[in-house]
C-alpha cells in the first residue's frame, strides 16, 4: 500500500501571509511577503465563553483549519484530524512557569487546562461538533512532516478524509532566547483518499536522503527555517504553482520526506 492522498483544501496564515489567496500571490512573485506580524482573525466559530479563554496557538490552528475545510467545500466536522505543533501555546507555557516560580504558586485553572498540547484539537472539536478521532503530535523541528506522515497513513489505511493542521507560536522571553520562533504560523491541508472537484494535486510520500528543497524567495526561506510549521512551504509553493515532481521536505536528522506531487489538471 502506498502513502498517498489528494490535497482538496489548503489554509495558510503567517507573518505577511494573510490566507491562502494572498500566499498564492507571494508564491507567484506578484506580491512581496508582507512585513507585518501574523494577523489572527477572531474566532466566530467558538462560543463567546471559550473564545475569551483561547490563546494564539488555538487561534492560528483554527483559522487555517477553517480555511482548508472551506476550500474543500466540506463540513469542518467531517474530518478525522491530525494536529502537529512543536511548542503549542508559548505564552501559556510562560505564564504557568512564571506562576510556579512565585511563592504562592497560584496556577490559573484555565491556563492549566489550556496547557495540554491538544488544546487546539479540543477547541476545534468543541467548535465544530466533530466527534471523529483526532491526534496531536510533536516532533520539534520535524513536526510538519511527522504530521504529514501520520495524516497520509490515516488516509491510506482507513480511506477517510483527514484534516492536517500544523501550527506554531512564538514563546515570549525568557524562553524565546532559547527557542527563537518569531511569530505564529499555521498551515492546513484537507487530504482525501479520492479525487474531489476541489482537489488540486495528488501526493505520494516516502522517505528520502536527498537534499531538502529550499525556497528561492529569500524572505520565505527565512520563514521556512525559523518556524517548524513553515517547513511545509516548499510543498505549498508547488501546490499553488502546480509544479509536478518530487519535493523533499525537512524531517528528522538523516531522514527526509519526499513528496511526489501530481497536479490535478
Amino acid at each position, binding site marked *: 500500500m502506498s502513502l498517498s492522498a489528494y490535497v482538496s483544501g489548503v489554509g495558510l496564515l503567517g507573518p505577511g501571509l494573510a490566507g491562502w489567496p494572498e500566499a498564492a500571490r507571494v508564491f507567484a512573485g506578484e506580491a512581496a511577503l508582507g512585513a507585518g506580524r501574523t494577523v489572527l482573525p477572531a474566532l466566530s466559530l467558538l462560543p463567546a465563553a471559550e473564545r475569551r479563554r483561547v490563546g494564539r496557538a488555538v487561534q492560528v490552528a483554527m483559522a487555517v483549519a477553517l480555511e482548508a475545510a472551506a476550500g474543500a467545500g466540506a463540513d469542518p466536522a467531517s474530518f478525522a484530524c491530525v494536529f502537529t505543533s512543536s511548542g503549542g501555546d508559548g505564552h501559556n507555557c510562560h505564564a504557568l*512557569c512564571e506562576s510556579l516560580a512565585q511563592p504562592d504558586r497560584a496556577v490559573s485553572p484555565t491556563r492549566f487546562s489550556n496547557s495540554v498540547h491538544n488544546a487546539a484539537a479540543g477547541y476545534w472539536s468543541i467548535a465544530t461538533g466533530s466527534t471523529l478521532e483526532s491526534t*496531536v503530535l*510533536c516532533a520539534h523541528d520535524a513536526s510538519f512532516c511527522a504530521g504529514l506522515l501520520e495524516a497520509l497513513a490515516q488516509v491510506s489505511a482507513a480511506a477517510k478524509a483527514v484534516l492536517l493542521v500544523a501550527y506554531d507560536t512564538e514563546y515570549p522571553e525568557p524562553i524565546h532566547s532559547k527557542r527563537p520562533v518569531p511569530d505564529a504560523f499555521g498551515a492546513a491541508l484537507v487530504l482525501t483518499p479520492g479525487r474531489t472537484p476541489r482537489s488540486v494535486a495528488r501526493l505520494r510520500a516516502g*522517505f528520502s536522503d536527498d537534499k531538502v528543497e529550499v525556497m528561492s524567495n529569500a524572505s520565505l526561506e527565512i520563514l521556512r527555517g525559523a518556524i517548524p510549521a513553515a517547513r511545509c512551504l516548499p510543498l505549498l509553493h508547488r501546490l499553488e504553482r502546480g509544479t509536478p515532481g518530487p519535493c523533499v521536505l525537512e524531517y528528522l536528522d538523516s531522514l527526509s520526506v519526499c513528496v511526489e506531487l501530481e497536479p490535478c489538471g
Partner: protein
Amino acid sequence: MVPLRLTCFTATSCIGQGLAPMLESLLAGRSGLTPCDFETADLRTYIGEVPGVDEVRLPAELAPFNCRNNRLAELGLRQDGFADAVARVAGRYTAARVGVFIGTSTAGILETEQAYRRRDPVTGALPADFEYAKTQNSFSVADYVRRRLQLRGPAAVVSCACASSAKVFASAQRMIEVGLIDAAVVGGVDSLCLTTLYGFHSLQLSSAAPCRPFDVARDGISVGEAAAFVLLERPDRERPGRGRPGCARSALDLAADDVVLLGVGESSDAYHMSAPHPEGLGARHAMQAALTAAHLPVDAVDYINFHGTGTLSNDRSESRAVVGLFGTSTPGSSTKGATGHTLGAAGALEAVICALALRHEFMPGGLNISRHDPALSACYLRETRRVRLGAVLSNSFGFGGTNCSLLLGRAG
C-alpha cells in the same frame, strides 16, 4: 485490522521497576501511592513516585537530554531486556524500518520550572545550561528513545493529555499497516512536575487521600509517573508458516501465549476542555470503534481496565459508557489506586498491565475502595481474580475530550 504482536513489553512505575515486581504488586493488591514530598511541592495530596529516578545516569553521548522525564525513560528501557529485543528486531528489518511513537503530556517541563527559579536577576534570562529541545520540548522523550535504541525510522511524540500513550498504538498500527515500517517502539513516559501537581490542584481535581476510583467518597486523582514501552511487530513478517493450519492465526506467526493488539478505537467528545461528556458518549464511541476494528462482539471482552481516575465526573461518565455498551456484568477495575494517574504514560502503562493480566491469567482488583458508589452500575472488581482471559479492553481519556480504547488479547 491485522493483529500486531507485543513482541516485548515493560513498565516502570511506583508499583515496581520492570514486570516482575509490578506483577507481584498487582497480585498482592499493593499501592505505591505516598504522601506528596516531591521537589518543593507544598500540597496535601498523594503521589505515585518512582524511587531512584534522580540517580539514573544517561549514557554520556546523550547527556544533554538529562531531565527527570528522560531519566525515567532510561530507567524504563533498562528493564526486561527491552533494549535487546528492540536491537534484535532492528537487526531483522533494519533500523530505518522501526518507528518510535511515545506519549507524554509534560515531557521535561520540570527543567523549565526549575530554570524559571534561576533566572538572571538583572536580565531575566534563563540559565545558560538550560536545554530547550532536549528537555522541555515534548518531542525530547521520543528523540531520546530513538537515539538510545539507535533507531532510524519515523518518530513522533503523541501529546493528547491522558490519552497520549494509548494513541501511540494507533499511530504505529497505521504506519505498519500501510507498510511504512515493520515494527515500532511505542510507549508512554510522564514524570512528576509542578505543572501537573499544582494544575490539578487548581482545578480541585486532586485528592488529599490516595485516589479511590469508583468509591462513593472519591474526590480526585493522585498524580503518578511511569515509563512503559511495547515493541509492536507485524506477526506475518518473519518465519512464515509457523502457525498451525486451520487455526485463525495460521497465516500469522504467533505462539499461543503471545499477546496481541486486536483493535484500537478513537473518538472526540466535542463537549468540554476539562470535563468528560456526562453520558460518556465519546468513551462509548472509542470502545465500540476498538471492537469494530477487531471484528469482535462485546461479549468477547473478559475484563476492562477503566480509565478510572477517581474524579467524580470521570468515573460517572465512564461507568455510563461501559454499561451502555457492555451492560453490568463485564468486570472491570481501575489500577490507578495502585499506580496513581500517570497521565501521558497511563495508556501504555495500563496496556502493559493488561498484557500481564492476559499472560498471567488474572484480573487486578481496584484498590482504596471502601464503599462502591451505588450510582456507578458498571461491574467493578474489588478483589483480584485468577482467571484465564481471552480479550481485554483498556480505556484512556484526556483533557480536550480525546478518547482511546485498546483491545488486547491472547493469540491462542
